Protein backbone atom coordinates (compact mmCIF):
# COMPACT_ATOMS: atom_id res chain seq x y z
CA UNK A 1 0.00 0.00 0.00
CA UNK A 2 1.42 3.38 -0.95
CA UNK A 3 1.28 5.71 2.04
CA UNK A 4 2.66 9.20 2.43
CA UNK A 5 5.73 9.17 4.65
CA UNK A 6 4.80 11.27 7.68
CA UNK A 7 8.43 11.64 8.71
CA UNK A 8 9.37 13.11 5.33
CA UNK A 9 6.36 15.40 5.33
CA UNK A 10 7.18 16.74 8.76
CA UNK A 11 10.82 17.15 7.82
CA UNK A 12 9.87 19.34 4.87
CA UNK A 13 7.46 21.34 7.02
CA UNK A 14 10.21 21.94 9.56
CA UNK A 15 12.67 22.94 6.83
CA UNK A 16 10.11 25.38 5.46
CA UNK A 17 9.99 27.17 8.82
CA UNK A 18 13.79 27.38 8.94
CA UNK A 19 13.90 28.57 5.34
CA UNK A 20 11.42 31.34 6.10
CA UNK A 21 13.44 32.61 9.04
CA UNK A 22 16.80 32.20 7.32
CA UNK A 23 15.76 33.90 4.10
CA UNK A 24 14.52 36.90 6.09
CA UNK A 25 17.93 37.18 7.72
CA UNK A 26 20.22 36.31 4.86
CA UNK A 27 18.61 37.53 1.66
CA UNK A 28 19.02 41.09 0.48
CA UNK A 29 15.40 41.54 -0.59
CA UNK A 30 11.96 39.95 -0.61
CA UNK A 31 12.51 38.94 -4.24
CA UNK A 32 15.71 37.13 -3.43
CA UNK A 33 14.11 35.54 -0.40
CA UNK A 34 11.36 34.05 -2.53
CA UNK A 35 13.85 32.94 -5.16
CA UNK A 36 16.03 31.22 -2.57
CA UNK A 37 13.08 29.50 -0.93
CA UNK A 38 11.81 28.12 -4.24
CA UNK A 39 15.32 26.96 -5.16
CA UNK A 40 15.81 25.32 -1.78
CA UNK A 41 12.38 23.63 -1.80
CA UNK A 42 13.20 21.86 -5.05
CA UNK A 43 16.50 20.60 -3.65
CA UNK A 44 14.92 19.49 -0.38
CA UNK A 45 12.30 17.47 -2.22
CA UNK A 46 14.99 15.98 -4.45
CA UNK A 47 17.17 15.11 -1.46
CA UNK A 48 14.39 14.16 0.98
CA UNK A 49 15.22 10.44 1.11
CA UNK A 50 18.96 11.07 1.38
CA UNK A 51 18.49 13.60 4.16
CA UNK A 52 16.42 11.18 6.19
CA UNK A 53 18.73 8.27 5.52
CA UNK A 54 21.81 10.26 6.53
CA UNK A 55 20.34 11.36 9.84
CA UNK A 56 21.44 8.92 12.51
CA UNK A 57 20.34 10.82 15.58
CA UNK A 58 23.82 12.03 16.57
CA UNK A 59 22.51 15.58 16.78
CA UNK A 60 19.04 16.94 17.44
CA UNK A 61 16.90 16.90 14.31
CA UNK A 62 16.43 20.67 14.55
CA UNK A 63 20.13 21.47 14.52
CA UNK A 64 20.66 18.98 11.70
CA UNK A 65 17.97 20.63 9.58
CA UNK A 66 19.31 24.13 10.31
CA UNK A 67 22.73 22.91 9.14
CA UNK A 68 21.20 21.35 6.03
CA UNK A 69 19.38 24.56 5.15
CA UNK A 70 22.54 26.66 5.68
CA UNK A 71 24.41 24.33 3.38
CA UNK A 72 21.69 24.96 0.80
CA UNK A 73 22.04 28.72 1.28
CA UNK A 74 25.78 28.57 0.61
CA UNK A 75 25.16 26.43 -2.47
CA UNK A 76 22.56 28.93 -3.62
CA UNK A 77 24.93 31.86 -3.21
CA UNK A 78 27.69 30.06 -5.09
CA UNK A 79 25.29 29.12 -7.88
CA UNK A 80 24.14 32.72 -8.17
CA UNK A 81 27.20 34.80 -7.42
CA UNK A 82 30.13 32.40 -7.50
CA UNK A 83 32.57 31.82 -4.64
CA UNK A 84 33.45 34.83 -2.55
CA UNK A 85 34.70 35.25 1.03
CA UNK A 86 33.22 38.40 2.54
CA UNK A 87 35.18 40.35 5.13
CA UNK A 88 34.40 40.05 8.82
CA UNK A 89 33.02 43.58 8.84
CA UNK A 90 30.68 42.79 5.95
CA UNK A 91 29.49 39.63 7.69
CA UNK A 92 28.70 41.60 10.80
CA UNK A 93 26.86 44.25 8.82
CA UNK A 94 24.65 41.69 7.11
CA UNK A 95 23.64 40.38 3.74
CA UNK A 96 23.34 43.75 1.99
CA UNK A 97 26.85 44.69 3.12
CA UNK A 98 28.22 41.36 1.92
CA UNK A 99 26.63 41.81 -1.49
CA UNK A 100 27.75 45.43 -1.70
CA UNK A 101 31.31 44.44 -0.84
CA UNK A 102 31.23 41.73 -3.47
CA UNK A 103 30.15 44.21 -6.12
CA UNK A 104 32.80 46.74 -5.09
CA UNK A 105 35.72 44.41 -4.54
CA UNK A 106 35.24 41.42 -6.79
CA UNK A 107 33.22 42.97 -9.60
CA UNK A 108 35.23 46.20 -9.39
CA UNK A 109 32.15 48.42 -9.65
CA UNK A 110 32.14 51.99 -8.42
CA UNK A 111 29.92 52.74 -5.45
CA UNK A 112 27.29 54.38 -7.66
CA UNK A 113 27.22 51.40 -9.98
CA UNK A 114 27.01 48.93 -7.08
CA UNK A 115 24.22 50.91 -5.42
CA UNK A 116 22.35 50.99 -8.72
CA UNK A 117 22.68 47.23 -9.15
CA UNK A 118 21.48 46.57 -5.62
CA UNK A 119 18.56 48.97 -5.72
CA UNK A 120 17.36 48.50 -9.28
CA UNK A 121 18.27 44.91 -10.15
CA UNK A 122 18.18 43.16 -6.79
CA UNK A 123 15.27 44.92 -5.12
CA UNK A 124 17.24 46.23 -2.13
CA UNK A 125 15.13 48.85 -0.35
CA UNK A 126 18.01 50.71 1.32
CA UNK A 127 18.59 54.30 0.21
CA UNK A 128 21.82 55.41 -1.45
CA UNK A 129 22.75 57.22 1.77
CA UNK A 130 22.24 54.05 3.81
CA UNK A 131 24.32 52.04 1.35
CA UNK A 132 27.00 54.70 1.46
CA UNK A 133 27.08 54.46 5.26
CA UNK A 134 27.54 50.71 4.95
CA UNK A 135 30.30 51.13 2.38
CA UNK A 136 32.20 53.43 4.72
CA UNK A 137 32.26 50.68 7.34
CA UNK A 138 33.70 48.07 4.98
CA UNK A 139 37.42 47.38 5.22
CA UNK A 140 39.66 48.67 2.48
CA UNK A 141 40.52 45.37 0.92
CA UNK A 142 41.61 47.10 -2.26
CA UNK A 143 41.52 50.79 -3.09
CA UNK A 144 38.00 51.89 -3.97
CA UNK A 145 36.52 55.19 -4.90
CA UNK A 146 33.11 56.47 -3.95
CA UNK A 147 32.49 59.03 -6.61
CA UNK A 148 29.42 60.25 -8.41
CA UNK A 149 28.52 59.75 -12.04
CA UNK A 150 29.70 63.21 -12.97
CA UNK A 151 33.10 62.69 -11.41
CA UNK A 152 33.42 59.34 -13.11
CA UNK A 153 32.64 60.92 -16.44
CA UNK A 154 35.59 63.27 -15.97
CA UNK A 155 38.06 60.52 -15.06
CA UNK A 156 40.98 60.41 -17.49
CA UNK A 157 42.89 57.38 -18.69
CA UNK A 158 46.09 58.32 -16.77
CA UNK A 159 44.17 58.30 -13.45
CA UNK A 160 42.90 54.79 -14.17
CA UNK A 161 46.50 53.68 -14.66
CA UNK A 162 47.47 55.18 -11.29
CA UNK A 163 44.61 53.32 -9.71
CA UNK A 164 45.75 50.10 -11.29
CA UNK A 165 49.27 50.64 -9.93
CA UNK A 166 47.88 51.31 -6.44
CA UNK A 167 45.77 48.18 -6.65
CA UNK A 168 48.82 46.14 -7.62
CA UNK A 169 50.89 47.43 -4.68
CA UNK A 170 48.10 46.87 -2.21
CA UNK A 171 47.48 43.36 -3.52
CA UNK A 172 51.16 42.47 -3.12
CA UNK A 173 51.24 43.83 0.45
CA UNK A 174 48.01 42.03 1.35
CA UNK A 175 49.35 38.78 -0.05
CA UNK A 176 52.55 39.11 2.04
CA UNK A 177 50.53 39.73 5.23
CA UNK A 178 48.16 36.88 4.50
CA UNK A 179 51.04 34.46 4.05
CA UNK A 180 52.60 35.58 7.35
CA UNK A 181 49.25 35.37 9.10
CA UNK A 182 48.60 31.87 7.79
CA UNK A 183 52.03 30.77 9.05
CA UNK A 184 51.46 32.45 12.44
CA UNK A 185 48.05 30.81 12.81
CA UNK A 186 49.57 27.41 12.16
CA UNK A 187 51.60 27.77 15.36
CA UNK A 188 48.32 27.71 17.30
CA UNK A 189 46.23 24.64 18.16
CA UNK A 190 43.19 23.86 15.99
CA UNK A 191 40.81 24.89 18.77
CA UNK A 192 42.68 28.18 19.28
CA UNK A 193 42.43 28.91 15.57
CA UNK A 194 38.73 28.14 15.63
CA UNK A 195 38.22 30.47 18.61
CA UNK A 196 40.09 33.27 16.82
CA UNK A 197 38.27 32.73 13.55
CA UNK A 198 34.88 32.86 15.21
CA UNK A 199 35.73 35.88 17.34
CA UNK A 200 37.86 37.99 15.03
CA UNK A 201 36.97 36.88 11.52
CA UNK A 202 33.26 36.26 12.08
CA UNK A 203 32.64 38.75 14.86
CA UNK A 204 31.18 36.32 17.44
CA UNK A 205 31.08 37.77 20.93
CA UNK A 206 33.04 35.86 23.58
CA UNK A 207 29.74 34.64 25.02
CA UNK A 208 28.68 33.30 21.61
CA UNK A 209 32.07 31.62 21.06
CA UNK A 210 31.67 30.01 24.46
CA UNK A 211 28.19 28.69 23.62
CA UNK A 212 29.17 27.57 20.15
CA UNK A 213 32.27 25.64 21.17
CA UNK A 214 30.85 24.55 24.54
CA UNK A 215 33.74 26.14 26.40
CA UNK A 216 33.49 27.86 29.77
CA UNK A 217 33.12 31.57 29.11
CA UNK A 218 35.18 33.17 31.84
CA UNK A 219 38.59 31.61 31.04
CA UNK A 220 37.94 32.38 27.39
CA UNK A 221 38.61 36.09 27.89
CA UNK A 222 42.10 35.44 29.22
CA UNK A 223 42.70 32.78 26.56
CA UNK A 224 41.76 35.20 23.79
CA UNK A 225 44.09 37.82 25.19
CA UNK A 226 46.94 35.31 25.28
CA UNK A 227 46.17 34.14 21.75
CA UNK A 228 46.18 37.61 20.24
CA UNK A 229 49.42 38.42 22.08
CA UNK A 230 51.01 35.29 20.71
CA UNK A 231 49.73 35.97 17.22
CA UNK A 232 51.03 39.52 17.34
CA UNK A 233 54.48 38.32 18.43
CA UNK A 234 54.51 35.72 15.65
CA UNK A 235 53.58 38.34 13.07
CA UNK A 236 56.15 40.82 14.34
CA UNK A 237 58.79 38.10 14.17
CA UNK A 238 57.88 37.77 10.51
CA UNK A 239 58.28 41.50 9.98
CA UNK A 240 54.59 42.34 9.88
CA UNK A 241 53.32 45.45 11.64
CA UNK A 242 49.82 46.27 12.85
CA UNK A 243 49.48 48.67 9.92
CA UNK A 244 50.28 45.82 7.56
CA UNK A 245 47.55 43.68 9.11
CA UNK A 246 45.12 46.51 8.53
CA UNK A 247 45.64 46.00 4.82
CA UNK A 248 43.75 42.72 4.79
CA UNK A 249 40.08 42.96 5.36
CA UNK A 250 39.02 40.01 7.44
CA UNK A 251 41.72 40.41 10.11
CA UNK A 252 41.69 44.17 10.04
CA UNK A 253 39.96 44.38 13.39
CA UNK A 254 42.27 41.92 15.12
CA UNK A 255 43.59 44.27 17.80
CA UNK A 256 40.73 46.70 18.02
CA UNK A 257 38.04 44.06 18.25
CA UNK A 258 39.62 41.94 20.91
CA UNK A 259 40.29 44.99 23.05
CA UNK A 260 36.72 46.16 22.49
CA UNK A 261 35.13 42.86 23.39
CA UNK A 262 37.34 42.42 26.40
CA UNK A 263 36.38 45.76 27.86
CA UNK A 264 32.80 45.51 26.66
CA UNK A 265 31.97 42.06 27.92
CA UNK A 266 33.96 41.56 31.08
CA UNK A 267 31.80 41.82 34.15
CA UNK A 268 32.49 44.93 36.20
CA UNK A 269 35.50 44.48 38.42
CA UNK A 270 34.60 43.63 41.98
CA UNK A 271 35.80 46.13 44.53
CA UNK A 272 38.88 45.03 46.39
CA UNK A 273 38.73 44.20 50.11
CA UNK A 274 40.29 47.54 50.85
CA UNK A 275 37.69 49.35 48.75
CA UNK A 276 34.85 47.43 50.40
CA UNK A 277 36.25 48.28 53.79
CA UNK A 278 36.06 52.00 53.14
Amino acid sequence: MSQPNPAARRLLTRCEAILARLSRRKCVSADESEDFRSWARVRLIEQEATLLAKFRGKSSLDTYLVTVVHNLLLDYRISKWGKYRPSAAAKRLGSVAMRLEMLLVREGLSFDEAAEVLRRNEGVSATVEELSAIAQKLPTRLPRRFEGEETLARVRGSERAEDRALRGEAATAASRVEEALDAALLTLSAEDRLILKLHVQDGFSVADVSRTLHLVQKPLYRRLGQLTDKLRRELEARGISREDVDQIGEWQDLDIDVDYHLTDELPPARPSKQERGR
Partner: protein
Amino acid sequence: MSEPAISGSHLELESIAAFLDGRLAAGEREAVVTHLAECEGCYEIFAETARYLRNVEMGRDPEAFGPAAMAPSVEMRGRVVRVAPSRWRRGWIVGALAAAAALAALVIGRPLADRPFSSAPPTVAELTAELPTAMVVSATLAATWDEHGWPVMRGAGPLLGPEEERAFQLGVRVVEMDVALAAGEAAIASRLSYEIERLLAAVNLSDPLQLLYAGELGIRGRLASGAVPAELLPLNRQGDDLLRPDERGEAALVDGFWYELGRWASAAHLAVVSGDAELLASKQTRRYLHGLPLQDLPEEVAEPLRRISQFSVGDPEHNLTEIAHQLELLIAVAGGADPSSPTPRDSSSTRDSR
Protein backbone atom coordinates in the same frame (compact mmCIF):
# COMPACT_ATOMS: atom_id res chain seq x y z
CA MET B 1 40.80 9.05 18.36
CA SER B 2 37.51 8.20 16.66
CA GLU B 3 36.91 9.81 13.28
CA PRO B 4 33.96 12.04 12.50
CA ALA B 5 31.76 11.03 9.57
CA ILE B 6 33.30 12.57 6.47
CA SER B 7 31.71 12.62 3.03
CA GLY B 8 34.41 13.02 0.39
CA SER B 9 36.80 15.56 1.87
CA HIS B 10 34.19 17.35 3.98
CA LEU B 11 32.43 16.70 7.26
CA GLU B 12 28.98 15.15 7.17
CA LEU B 13 26.40 17.81 8.00
CA GLU B 14 25.25 15.73 10.94
CA SER B 15 28.76 15.82 12.44
CA ILE B 16 28.70 19.62 12.27
CA ALA B 17 25.24 19.62 13.84
CA ALA B 18 26.31 17.19 16.59
CA PHE B 19 29.35 19.39 17.29
CA LEU B 20 27.08 22.42 17.59
CA ASP B 21 24.83 20.45 19.94
CA GLY B 22 27.86 19.49 22.03
CA ARG B 23 27.11 15.82 21.57
CA LEU B 24 30.42 14.49 20.29
CA ALA B 25 32.76 12.30 22.30
CA ALA B 26 36.12 13.91 23.09
CA GLY B 27 38.02 12.15 20.30
CA GLU B 28 35.43 12.90 17.65
CA ARG B 29 35.15 16.49 18.82
CA GLU B 30 38.89 16.96 18.44
CA ALA B 31 38.77 15.58 14.90
CA VAL B 32 35.90 17.91 13.98
CA VAL B 33 37.71 20.92 15.47
CA THR B 34 40.85 20.06 13.49
CA HIS B 35 38.84 19.73 10.29
CA LEU B 36 36.95 22.98 10.85
CA ALA B 37 40.20 24.84 11.49
CA GLU B 38 41.53 23.62 8.12
CA CYS B 39 38.53 23.44 5.78
CA GLU B 40 37.00 26.75 4.74
CA GLY B 41 33.92 25.12 3.19
CA CYS B 42 32.93 23.23 6.33
CA TYR B 43 33.89 26.19 8.54
CA GLU B 44 31.57 28.46 6.55
CA ILE B 45 28.58 26.14 7.08
CA PHE B 46 29.51 25.69 10.75
CA ALA B 47 29.96 29.41 11.45
CA GLU B 48 26.83 30.47 9.60
CA THR B 49 24.72 27.80 11.32
CA ALA B 50 26.18 28.75 14.70
CA ARG B 51 25.46 32.42 14.05
CA TYR B 52 21.84 31.55 13.20
CA LEU B 53 21.42 29.42 16.32
CA ARG B 54 22.94 32.08 18.59
CA ASN B 55 20.77 34.80 17.04
CA VAL B 56 17.63 32.73 17.47
CA GLU B 57 18.61 31.88 21.04
CA MET B 58 19.13 35.52 21.92
CA GLY B 59 16.03 36.74 20.09
CA ARG B 60 18.20 38.63 17.58
CA ASP B 61 15.85 37.83 14.74
CA PRO B 62 15.17 40.80 12.49
CA GLU B 63 12.00 40.63 10.43
CA ALA B 64 12.91 43.08 7.70
CA PHE B 65 15.33 43.09 4.80
CA GLY B 66 18.01 45.67 4.26
CA PRO B 67 19.98 47.81 6.67
CA ALA B 68 17.32 47.67 9.35
CA ALA B 69 17.89 43.96 9.55
CA MET B 70 21.57 44.29 10.20
CA ALA B 71 21.53 44.89 13.90
CA PRO B 72 18.95 44.42 16.59
CA SER B 73 17.20 47.64 17.42
CA VAL B 74 17.38 49.14 20.88
CA GLU B 75 13.78 48.03 21.34
CA MET B 76 14.63 44.46 20.41
CA ARG B 77 17.63 44.34 22.71
CA GLY B 78 15.45 45.68 25.50
CA ARG B 79 12.89 42.98 24.86
CA VAL B 80 15.48 40.24 25.06
CA VAL B 81 16.82 41.52 28.33
CA ARG B 82 13.34 41.92 29.74
CA VAL B 83 11.88 38.61 28.58
CA ALA B 84 14.60 36.18 29.57
CA PRO B 85 14.43 36.37 33.37
CA SER B 86 10.82 37.44 33.85
CA ARG B 87 9.42 34.70 31.64
CA TRP B 88 10.89 32.08 33.94
CA ARG B 89 9.49 33.77 37.02
CA ARG B 90 6.11 34.17 35.34
CA GLY B 91 6.22 30.48 34.38
CA TRP B 92 6.48 29.52 38.02
CA ILE B 93 3.60 31.78 39.03
CA VAL B 94 1.41 30.28 36.30
CA GLY B 95 2.63 26.82 37.26
CA ALA B 96 1.77 27.40 40.89
CA LEU B 97 -1.71 28.65 39.99
CA ALA B 98 -2.26 25.68 37.70
CA ALA B 99 -1.08 23.36 40.43
CA ALA B 100 -3.49 24.93 42.89
CA ALA B 101 -6.35 24.55 40.40
CA ALA B 102 -5.48 20.92 39.80
CA LEU B 103 -5.30 20.16 43.49
CA ALA B 104 -8.67 21.85 43.99
CA ALA B 105 -10.15 19.67 41.26
CA LEU B 106 -8.62 16.65 42.91
CA VAL B 107 -10.23 17.48 46.22
CA ILE B 108 -13.61 18.36 44.71
CA GLY B 109 -13.45 15.28 42.50
CA ARG B 110 -16.50 16.00 40.37
CA PRO B 111 -17.07 13.36 37.70
CA LEU B 112 -16.16 14.42 34.17
CA ALA B 113 -19.76 14.32 32.94
CA ASP B 114 -20.88 16.90 35.53
CA ARG B 115 -18.45 19.56 34.40
CA PRO B 116 -19.61 22.40 32.19
CA PHE B 117 -18.92 21.70 28.55
CA SER B 118 -16.45 24.15 27.13
CA SER B 119 -17.31 25.82 23.85
CA ALA B 120 -13.59 26.13 23.09
CA PRO B 121 -12.10 23.51 20.76
CA PRO B 122 -11.40 20.42 22.83
CA THR B 123 -7.78 19.56 23.40
CA VAL B 124 -6.16 16.38 24.52
CA ALA B 125 -4.69 18.30 27.43
CA GLU B 126 -8.22 18.96 28.67
CA LEU B 127 -9.04 15.28 28.47
CA THR B 128 -5.97 13.99 30.19
CA ALA B 129 -6.04 16.72 32.82
CA GLU B 130 -9.11 14.99 34.20
CA LEU B 131 -7.25 11.81 34.91
CA PRO B 132 -5.90 12.57 38.39
CA THR B 133 -9.51 12.63 39.65
CA ALA B 134 -9.68 8.90 39.04
CA MET B 135 -7.28 7.81 41.75
CA VAL B 136 -7.82 4.18 40.94
CA VAL B 137 -5.74 4.52 37.79
CA SER B 138 -2.63 4.93 39.87
CA ALA B 139 -2.92 1.32 40.97
CA THR B 140 -3.05 0.28 37.33
CA LEU B 141 -0.11 2.46 36.57
CA ALA B 142 1.93 1.09 39.45
CA ALA B 143 1.49 -2.40 38.04
CA THR B 144 1.92 -1.71 34.35
CA TRP B 145 3.87 1.48 33.61
CA ASP B 146 6.91 -0.29 32.21
CA GLU B 147 5.16 -2.92 30.10
CA HIS B 148 4.74 -1.14 26.80
CA GLY B 149 6.99 -3.52 24.95
CA TRP B 150 9.02 -0.72 23.45
CA PRO B 151 12.55 -1.67 22.45
CA VAL B 152 15.11 -0.53 25.00
CA MET B 153 17.68 0.30 22.33
CA ARG B 154 17.82 3.82 20.99
CA GLY B 155 16.45 4.72 17.63
CA ALA B 156 13.17 4.52 15.84
CA GLY B 157 11.00 1.45 15.60
CA PRO B 158 9.77 0.11 12.29
CA LEU B 159 6.83 2.50 11.79
CA LEU B 160 7.67 6.08 12.66
CA GLY B 161 10.67 8.34 12.37
CA PRO B 162 12.79 8.95 15.48
CA GLU B 163 11.14 12.28 16.16
CA GLU B 164 7.57 10.99 15.89
CA GLU B 165 8.35 7.96 18.00
CA ARG B 166 10.08 10.04 20.65
CA ALA B 167 7.17 12.49 20.75
CA PHE B 168 4.65 9.65 21.12
CA GLN B 169 6.61 7.95 23.90
CA LEU B 170 7.02 11.26 25.66
CA GLY B 171 3.27 11.91 25.48
CA VAL B 172 2.63 8.52 27.10
CA ARG B 173 5.23 9.09 29.80
CA VAL B 174 4.10 12.62 30.65
CA VAL B 175 0.56 11.40 31.37
CA GLU B 176 1.88 8.52 33.43
CA MET B 177 4.05 10.97 35.35
CA ASP B 178 1.04 13.19 35.95
CA VAL B 179 -0.93 10.31 37.37
CA ALA B 180 1.97 9.11 39.47
CA LEU B 181 2.52 12.58 40.90
CA ALA B 182 -1.19 13.10 41.60
CA ALA B 183 -1.34 9.76 43.36
CA GLY B 184 1.81 10.53 45.37
CA GLU B 185 3.64 7.60 43.80
CA ALA B 186 7.10 9.10 44.21
CA ALA B 187 8.92 5.85 43.43
CA ILE B 188 7.21 5.39 40.05
CA ALA B 189 7.51 9.12 39.31
CA SER B 190 11.21 8.93 40.01
CA ARG B 191 11.68 6.04 37.58
CA LEU B 192 9.53 7.83 35.00
CA SER B 193 11.65 10.97 35.40
CA TYR B 194 14.69 9.07 34.11
CA GLU B 195 12.63 7.89 31.13
CA ILE B 196 11.46 11.44 30.41
CA GLU B 197 14.97 12.82 30.74
CA ARG B 198 16.26 10.19 28.32
CA LEU B 199 13.60 11.12 25.77
CA LEU B 200 14.18 14.85 26.20
CA ALA B 201 17.94 14.48 25.86
CA ALA B 202 17.45 14.44 22.10
CA VAL B 203 15.54 17.71 21.84
CA ASN B 204 16.45 21.35 22.38
CA LEU B 205 15.01 22.48 25.68
CA SER B 206 14.81 26.14 26.59
CA ASP B 207 16.26 26.99 29.99
CA PRO B 208 12.89 27.03 31.82
CA LEU B 209 11.93 23.63 30.37
CA GLN B 210 15.41 22.32 31.14
CA LEU B 211 14.88 23.33 34.75
CA LEU B 212 11.39 21.84 34.84
CA TYR B 213 12.23 18.48 33.34
CA ALA B 214 15.89 17.68 33.62
CA GLY B 215 18.71 17.41 36.08
CA GLU B 216 18.94 17.98 39.78
CA LEU B 217 16.59 20.95 39.66
CA GLY B 218 14.02 19.12 37.52
CA ILE B 219 11.51 16.41 38.35
CA ARG B 220 14.15 13.87 39.32
CA GLY B 221 15.93 16.23 41.66
CA ARG B 222 12.75 17.42 43.31
CA LEU B 223 11.57 13.86 43.88
CA ALA B 224 14.78 13.00 45.69
CA SER B 225 13.24 13.69 49.08
CA GLY B 226 10.68 10.95 48.46
CA ALA B 227 7.76 13.39 48.43
CA VAL B 228 5.90 14.84 45.46
CA PRO B 229 6.27 18.61 45.32
CA ALA B 230 2.98 20.35 44.60
CA GLU B 231 4.48 22.67 42.00
CA LEU B 232 5.00 19.74 39.65
CA LEU B 233 1.24 19.35 39.27
CA PRO B 234 -0.18 19.11 36.74
CA LEU B 235 2.86 18.25 34.68
CA ASN B 236 0.61 17.19 31.85
CA ARG B 237 -0.62 20.73 31.33
CA GLN B 238 2.83 22.19 31.79
CA GLY B 239 3.89 19.63 29.23
CA ASP B 240 2.13 21.79 26.64
CA ASP B 241 5.15 24.07 26.95
CA LEU B 242 7.07 21.46 24.99
CA LEU B 243 4.95 22.38 21.98
CA ARG B 244 4.72 26.12 22.59
CA PRO B 245 7.32 28.28 20.85
CA ASP B 246 9.76 29.62 23.42
CA GLU B 247 11.71 32.86 23.41
CA ARG B 248 13.81 31.45 20.58
CA GLY B 249 10.62 31.01 18.58
CA GLU B 250 10.99 27.25 18.48
CA ALA B 251 9.15 24.51 20.32
CA ALA B 252 11.19 21.79 21.98
CA LEU B 253 9.04 19.11 20.37
CA VAL B 254 8.48 19.45 16.67
CA ASP B 255 5.90 16.75 16.50
CA GLY B 256 2.80 17.82 18.36
CA PHE B 257 0.52 15.34 16.63
CA TRP B 258 2.32 12.24 17.92
CA TYR B 259 2.91 13.81 21.33
CA GLU B 260 -0.80 14.43 21.74
CA LEU B 261 -1.74 11.01 20.43
CA GLY B 262 0.64 9.52 23.00
CA ARG B 263 -0.96 11.55 25.76
CA TRP B 264 -4.46 10.64 24.68
CA ALA B 265 -3.69 6.93 24.25
CA SER B 266 -2.03 6.72 27.64
CA ALA B 267 -4.85 8.60 29.38
CA ALA B 268 -7.51 6.52 27.65
CA HIS B 269 -5.74 3.27 28.45
CA LEU B 270 -5.23 4.07 32.11
CA ALA B 271 -8.88 5.08 32.39
CA VAL B 272 -10.20 2.03 30.57
CA VAL B 273 -8.02 -0.46 32.41
CA SER B 274 -9.25 1.14 35.62
CA GLY B 275 -12.85 0.53 34.52
CA ASP B 276 -13.60 4.16 33.70
CA ALA B 277 -15.58 4.51 30.46
CA GLU B 278 -16.36 8.20 30.81
CA LEU B 279 -13.24 9.41 29.06
CA LEU B 280 -14.11 7.27 26.02
CA ALA B 281 -17.76 8.32 26.09
CA SER B 282 -17.02 12.04 26.23
CA LYS B 283 -17.73 14.35 23.31
CA GLN B 284 -14.11 15.50 23.39
CA THR B 285 -12.84 11.99 22.77
CA ARG B 286 -15.30 11.42 19.94
CA ARG B 287 -14.33 14.71 18.32
CA TYR B 288 -10.66 13.94 18.73
CA LEU B 289 -10.97 10.47 17.21
CA HIS B 290 -13.17 11.79 14.41
CA GLY B 291 -10.61 14.45 13.52
CA LEU B 292 -7.62 12.11 13.28
CA PRO B 293 -6.17 11.86 9.73
CA LEU B 294 -6.32 8.07 9.72
CA GLN B 295 -5.63 7.88 5.98
CA ASP B 296 -2.23 9.50 6.53
CA LEU B 297 -1.17 7.21 9.35
CA PRO B 298 0.62 3.87 9.09
CA GLU B 299 -2.01 1.14 8.90
CA GLU B 300 -0.72 -0.52 12.09
CA VAL B 301 -1.58 2.69 13.97
CA ALA B 302 -4.76 3.57 12.05
CA GLU B 303 -6.42 0.19 12.51
CA PRO B 304 -6.57 0.15 16.34
CA LEU B 305 -7.79 3.75 16.26
CA ARG B 306 -10.61 2.78 13.87
CA ARG B 307 -11.65 -0.05 16.13
CA ILE B 308 -11.52 2.15 19.24
CA SER B 309 -13.77 4.64 17.44
CA GLN B 310 -16.25 1.90 16.54
CA PHE B 311 -16.37 0.53 20.09
CA SER B 312 -16.67 4.01 21.59
CA VAL B 313 -19.68 5.02 19.48
CA GLY B 314 -22.10 2.60 21.10
CA ASP B 315 -21.69 1.74 24.73
CA PRO B 316 -17.96 1.79 25.57
CA GLU B 317 -18.64 0.48 29.05
CA HIS B 318 -19.46 -2.94 27.60
CA ASN B 319 -16.42 -3.00 25.35
CA LEU B 320 -13.71 -1.96 27.77
CA THR B 321 -11.65 -5.14 27.36
CA GLU B 322 -11.54 -4.83 23.59
CA ILE B 323 -10.85 -1.09 23.73
CA ALA B 324 -8.06 -1.66 26.23
CA HIS B 325 -6.55 -4.28 23.94
CA GLN B 326 -6.65 -1.93 20.96
CA LEU B 327 -5.11 0.88 23.03
CA GLU B 328 -2.34 -1.49 24.10
CA LEU B 329 -1.65 -2.35 20.48
CA LEU B 330 -1.62 1.33 19.57
CA ILE B 331 0.77 2.27 22.38
CA ALA B 332 3.08 -0.63 21.63
CA VAL B 333 3.42 -0.13 17.87
CA ALA B 334 3.47 3.68 17.81
CA GLY B 335 6.03 3.63 20.60
CA GLY B 336 8.39 1.51 18.54
CA ALA B 337 7.55 -2.14 19.25
CA ASP B 338 7.62 -4.55 16.34
CA PRO B 339 4.02 -4.64 14.96
CA SER B 340 4.30 -8.38 14.42
CA SER B 341 5.01 -9.10 18.09
CA PRO B 342 3.99 -6.23 20.34
CA THR B 343 4.19 -6.82 24.06
CA PRO B 344 1.33 -4.72 25.30
CA ARG B 345 0.24 -4.00 28.83
CA ASP B 346 -1.65 -6.82 30.52
CA SER B 347 -5.33 -5.90 30.35
CA SER B 348 -6.56 -8.91 32.31
CA SER B 349 -7.28 -6.62 35.23
CA THR B 350 -9.76 -4.58 33.21
CA ARG B 351 -13.04 -4.17 35.04
CA ASP B 352 -15.88 -4.21 32.56
CA SER B 353 -18.26 -2.44 34.87
CA ARG B 354 -17.91 -0.33 37.93
